[in-house]
């Protein structure tokens, strides 16, 4: 990939990312599909970087999935978000870190609306006061967790146990990155590298020894489409858009896909399975499918965390081909065991995806 010109453009989008004292707003989707990733993020912040992050028990959804599937009015969304900010103020924090890209985009949209239409901010204050008696302030800084991992990527590299390098050949692993539409397409200045050349994941991959794969549909949506996945009748939209990405990346033979958004890795993981069952098509030569990682999981593997403690057993596409390439030692017998080593059985084998490649 030629990067000289792109680097100049990236330089224009160096967003401000708070140094410490973060208020963590959890993601509905991340918690449901990749809860280990949120645990890993908090662990890295506290134990590896030695920073402070608050995890609030009284927080809720931001309503994002409901808002973008149009069942929640904007005034309701603004006030639920204002309640989150009230909790943040109450606990003494000023730096908001929403775990979800949909939330990150929605918070940014609402802050933008409050800025352009100050009467909506006043109305939201009135709504929140009347409903709950609470007050709130707009945060000083908003950063996505990936922004923070990006900010400290070199420090993480300095503590790395494994790199994104093929341990047998010494060559960089080839990684596809997927940013997630709501990270920077709506508000380019809010994302590291902007909308054209987002660098937040590419920066991690490069810092940890990997090679970023550029491909034609790199910026295409993962296919979530909110109502188009929620409603069964519409799921053709979702799988068709994801398939478009797979077909575009397949010739580049990536070793893994790393994602920024909570939902995107789920779609890129599950739709590979669904396409294999529907059409017999698998997008990797070994028949396993292309392993998917969240950026927190990628950081966790680099730092040497146990793959089954960070939650890789929740993926439908097996991660073992990637672990093997990175030279990570793991116990395959532990993969499907419970917290106390109890035997939980194993998932049924898919009819097309080749699971034997993992052994």
């Amino acid at each position, binding site marked *: 990939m030629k990067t000289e010109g792109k680097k100049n453009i990236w330089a224009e989008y160096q967003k401000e990312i708070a140094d410490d004292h973060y208020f963590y707003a959890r993601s*509905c989707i991340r918690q*449901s599909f990749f809860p280990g990733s949120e*645990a890993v993020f908090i662990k890295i912040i506290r134990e590896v970087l030695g920073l402070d992050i608050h995890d609030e028990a009284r927080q809720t959804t931001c309503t994002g999935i409901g808002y973008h599937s149009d069942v929640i009015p904007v005034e309701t969304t603004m006030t639920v978000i204002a309640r989150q900010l009230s909790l943040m103020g109450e606990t003494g924090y000023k730096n908001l870190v929403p775990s979800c890209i949909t939330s990150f*985009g929605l918070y940014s949209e609402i802050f933008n609306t409050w800025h352009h239409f100050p009467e909506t901010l006043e109305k939201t204050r009135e709504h929140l006061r009347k409903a709950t008696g609470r007050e709130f302030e707009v945060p000083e800084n908003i950063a996505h967790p990936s922004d923070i991992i990006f900010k400290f990527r070199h420090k993480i590299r300095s503590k790395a146990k494994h790199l994104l390098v093929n341990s047998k050949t010494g060559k960089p692993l080839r990684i596809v990155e997927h940013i997630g539409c709501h990270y920077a*397409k709506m508000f380019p200045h809010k994302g590291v590298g902007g909308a054209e050349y987002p660098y937040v994941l590419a920066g991690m991959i490069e810092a940890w020894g990997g090679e970023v794969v550029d491909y034609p549909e790199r910026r295409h949506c993962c296919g979530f489409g909110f109502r188009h996945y929620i409603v069964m*009748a519409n799921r053709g939209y979702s799988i068709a858009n994801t398939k478009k990405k797979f077909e575009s990346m397949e010739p580049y033979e990536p070793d893994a896909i790393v994602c920024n958004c909570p939902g995107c890795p789920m779609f890129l993981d*599950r739709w590979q399975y669904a396409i294999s069952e529907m059409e017999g098509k698998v997008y990797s030569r070994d028949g396993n499918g292309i392993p998917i990682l969240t950026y927190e999981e990628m950081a966790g593997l680099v730092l040497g965390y146990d793959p089954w403690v960070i939650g890789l057993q929740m993926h439908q596409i097996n991660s073992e081909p990637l672990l093997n390439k990175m030279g990570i030692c793991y116990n395959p017998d532990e993969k499907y065991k419970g*917290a106390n080593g109890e035997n939980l059985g194993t*998932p049924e084998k898919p009819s097309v995806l080749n699971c034997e490649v993992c052994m």
Partner: protein
Amino acid sequence: MEKTFYQQLMQDVRFIEGLKACMNCGVCTAICPAADFYNYDPRIIVDTVQSQDETEIEKLLKSDTIWYCGECMSCSTRCPRGNVPGLIIIALRSLSQDTGYFAKSEKGRQQLAIKRAIGDNILKTGYCVHFDMVKPETHPEQGPVWEWLHKNPEPVFSKIGANYKKPGAGALRQVPEETLLEIKKIFDETGGTERFKKIESFSESKAREMTIDFRSGSTDCDYFNHVFTTNNNTHTH
């Protein structure tokens, strides 16, 4: 005097932010994942609303067309004039639900399923989406690992550091009752509850017209299943 549809749209901040002046270049359509899949053209949507033609706007509000957008907002980055068709769509969908016109199209009627699956879940649990609600039987694409997880949620979530259905902080925690009460009050105060009532009420009228069994709030009645699964296969290229 009753407000025109255009005047009602102009009361929505998303519409004001989304509509500047369209020159019909079609860049939004070129980048749009929905236009790639559905019989959909965001350029025409923007051109229609800026024409202020009430008859055409009413047609849009009653159509499948406004429900094709996936709200990825890719159009936001591309428009050289600063229009955001995705925001215009959000305003149109909002008005379509206020007027009850959403119930006149197959894709619009799906709002009932979304209201019951996502909207009601927010009030019940504090989450839009929660692991428990993504059931393998309605999500076969989730695959066998998801089925295995649904058989063993507690030991797996415990292993990977989640606080599944327990009090206190952490992933998948149980949201406290006092918090859910605050959220309910916010919905009552800000129009969320009113929106839900409208979706239920207009859907019930439509179900009666279509002679399909309708039960309030249920995700297991014939009308819910009808709107959740029906696809007349005329929506795509």
